[in-house]
């Protein structure tokens, strides 16, 4: 049998997975102890003889399983062919089907975002958080047994992004659990957690010691990280060998993803400026005086939802997509899929003006070189009039309509200029999902397509 050039499991990989399982074993061991102290008992179904068992016993069961799996991996007690622990082969195509498509990926991340907010009371409990953490680590560990998954997730430059996923998830969970606590206190008329027994303490020792411990721990962490995992360094630069795909630094991959839907002048220049400008304008737009200096969700539903929408599915979500799912030729690939340079995806995107003129059975007016500049301009404007009207309508008329309907209260309380800035920022933010849906539903390329002037929207 010839050697597989892309082996899913090798002795070294099995050993590495052993460490991952061992970490999970230790994590869950600690959790089992905690559960034994805090979680109490729950009744067994009559089928199993009834009676009460500690909740911790289930965690103990899971922990001991992890321990055994870790032991089997670390001792290499069998050959790679005999290892059956890994993401089951029949599940992989299903997961790939979901993530290897921008439509489905974005839909799932939107559902997750809505789900997080909707089910925040359930999800922000310690047990739910621990279950989610276990789900994520187990998913990662099982998937690491796959060659192609390892290639992309284990790339040195991508390691911080995997870490970021866990960290962002954790802090979102933490913020919601504190917000839920405060929201409950507010509903019951009790003082906020931040205000209760909030006495002044001396900075020395209470704060400076925390800072000192934090600095020492971080220094140690950075050095261990640096020694264990070398920072990325690829081949020497060559201006003739263009890598495929060519990616921007990872934190700009959300912006690079916008390039699929918008031209560089918008995705690379205007939108980033709007994002920064919008962030700076934020404190002057948000007139809600509540929620200053404490965690809450109920008192600031709108602003937190909008911010989280921008940060979670749009910013972080797009970075994940750009890093792990965009492969050669900027095609979408599943996480267990080989990055095949020859994968073909049909791309037949059509401008709005083409739709318009063809549906009228008329010839789409095109400027010719023998026209004067003025004639060319008029021809182009005639060709693209629908897109121009729609775009201007979106940015100018839509705010007025919203002011009379959904944002009526906002418009009244903000005043004209503040409201217009706010409305345009919201519309700019919504422009990306809108264009995505138009692309997926109608293969729409440009709403305004004037390549003659590099002015495509």
């Amino acid at each position, binding site marked *: 049998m010839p050697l597989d050039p892309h082996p899913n499991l090798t002795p070294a990989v099995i050993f590495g997975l052993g460490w991952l399982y061992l970490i999970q074993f230790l994590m869950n061991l600690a959790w089992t102890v905690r559960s034994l102290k805090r979680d109490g008992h729950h009744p067994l179904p009559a089928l199993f003889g009834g009676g009460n068992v500690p909740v911790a016993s289930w965690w103990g069961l899971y922990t001991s399983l992890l321990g055994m799996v870790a032991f089997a991996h670390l001792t290499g007690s069998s050959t790679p062919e005999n290892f059956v622990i890994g993401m089951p082969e029949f599940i992989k195509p299903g997961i790939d089907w979901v993530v290897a498509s921008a439509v489905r990926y974005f839909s799932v991340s939107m559902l997750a975002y809505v789900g997080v907010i909707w089910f925040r009371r359930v999800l922000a409990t310690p047990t739910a958080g621990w279950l989610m953490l276990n789900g994520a680590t187990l998913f990662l560990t099982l998937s690491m047994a796959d060659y192609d998954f390892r290639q992309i997730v284990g790339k040195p430059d991508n390691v*911080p992004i995997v870490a970021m996923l866990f*960290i962002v998830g954790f*802090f979102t969970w*933490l913020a919601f659990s*504190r*917000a839920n606590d405060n929201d409950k206190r507010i509903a019951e008329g009790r003082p*906020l957690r*931040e*205000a*209760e*027994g*909030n006495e*002044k*303490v*001396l*900075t*020395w020792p*209470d*704060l*400076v010691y925390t*800072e000192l411990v*934090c600095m020492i721990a971080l220094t140690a962490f*950075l050095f261990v*990280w*640096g020694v264990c995992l*070398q*920072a*990325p*360094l*690829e*081949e*020497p*630069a*060559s201006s003739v060998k263009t*890598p495929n795909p*060519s*990616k*921007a*630094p990872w*934190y700009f991959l959300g912006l690079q993803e916008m390039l699929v839907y918008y*031209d*560089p*002048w918008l995705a*690379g*220049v205007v939108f980033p400026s709007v994002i*920064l400008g919008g962030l*700076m304008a*934020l*404190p*002057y737009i*948000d007139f809600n*005086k*509540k*929620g*200053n*200096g*404490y965690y809450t969700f109920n008192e600031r539903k709108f602003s*937190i939802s909008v911010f989280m929408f921008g940060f979670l599915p749009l910013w972080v979500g797009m970075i994940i997509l750009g890093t792990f799912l965009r492969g050669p030729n900027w095609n979408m690939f599943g996480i267990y899929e080989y990055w095949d340079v020859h994968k073909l995806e049909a791309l037949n995107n059509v401008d709005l003006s083409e739709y318009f003129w063809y549906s009228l059975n008329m010839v789409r007016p095109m400027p010719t070189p023998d026209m004067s500049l003025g004639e060319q301009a008029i021809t182009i404007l005639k060709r693209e009039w629908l897109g121009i009207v729609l775009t201007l309508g979106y940015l100018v008329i839509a705010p007025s309509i919203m002011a009379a309907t959904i944002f009526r209260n906002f418009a009244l309380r903000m005043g004209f200029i503040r409201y217009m800035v706010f409305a345009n920022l919201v519309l700019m933010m919504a422009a990306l999902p809108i264009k995505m849906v138009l692309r997926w539903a109608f293969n729409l390329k440009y709403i305004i397509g004037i390549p003659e*002037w*590099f002015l495509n929207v």
Partner: protein
Amino acid sequence: MSVGDYIRESQIWKSVFRHPAPYDRRNRVVVMLTNFFLHLHPVSVKQEGIALSYTWCMGGITFFLFLVEAITGVLLMFYYRPTLEWAFNDIQALRDVNTLGVMREVHRWGAHAMVITVWLHMYRVFLTGSYKPPREFNWVVGVILLKLTLLLSFTGYLLPWDQLAIWAITVGSNMARATPVLGHEGPGFQLLNIGGYDLITNASDARFLLLGSKFVGEETLNRFYILHCVAIPLVVAGLIAIHFWRVRKDGGISQPL
């Protein structure tokens, strides 16, 4: 008299630390007021305000990472030459040969970490509503610092001069070509012309300003090196000072009003 007491009673020690060790309440207050490094802090703070589950410590960690980057960065500058001939070789030598090479790993990973901690700091400040009055302006300073952190990381990305570096910067800076009016492939670049001659060409547009060249080359390396090691860190250091100053002047760590 023990050795410790002897040292603490000496003229040298007393000239450095102008008060007894912070063992009692009085001296714990005095130490915050007379020590340069500690005087950033107020003398006392709200207990809930400094709780880790409230602040996530992300602002402090970001500042600490900035210091780590500054120190490791200066050490790296002793070994690194920003030229086409040496840039890559120097980094490789740091990695494979040099004892202090771990500084490069720490610098690189620290930079990744700093980008993430800056976002998380902003996330926390948003979620606790700490940008609300009277802290609006400090939020604006923070957004500028966020942008500068990304620029620091972006300019540093090029310096190893490997494939990852030049192509990431090529992709990233290609956007500047499309800057409206000021990029040679941006809408409205034809507006800037004199007597039919375009002022904005691939040798004079926004991208050229960024790269110092029509493509990512030696001029770019030099330009990014200066930006990364001198220009941006100076601006960031200044803004950090303002950011901290305003934290104090706007009422310290945010708490319920």
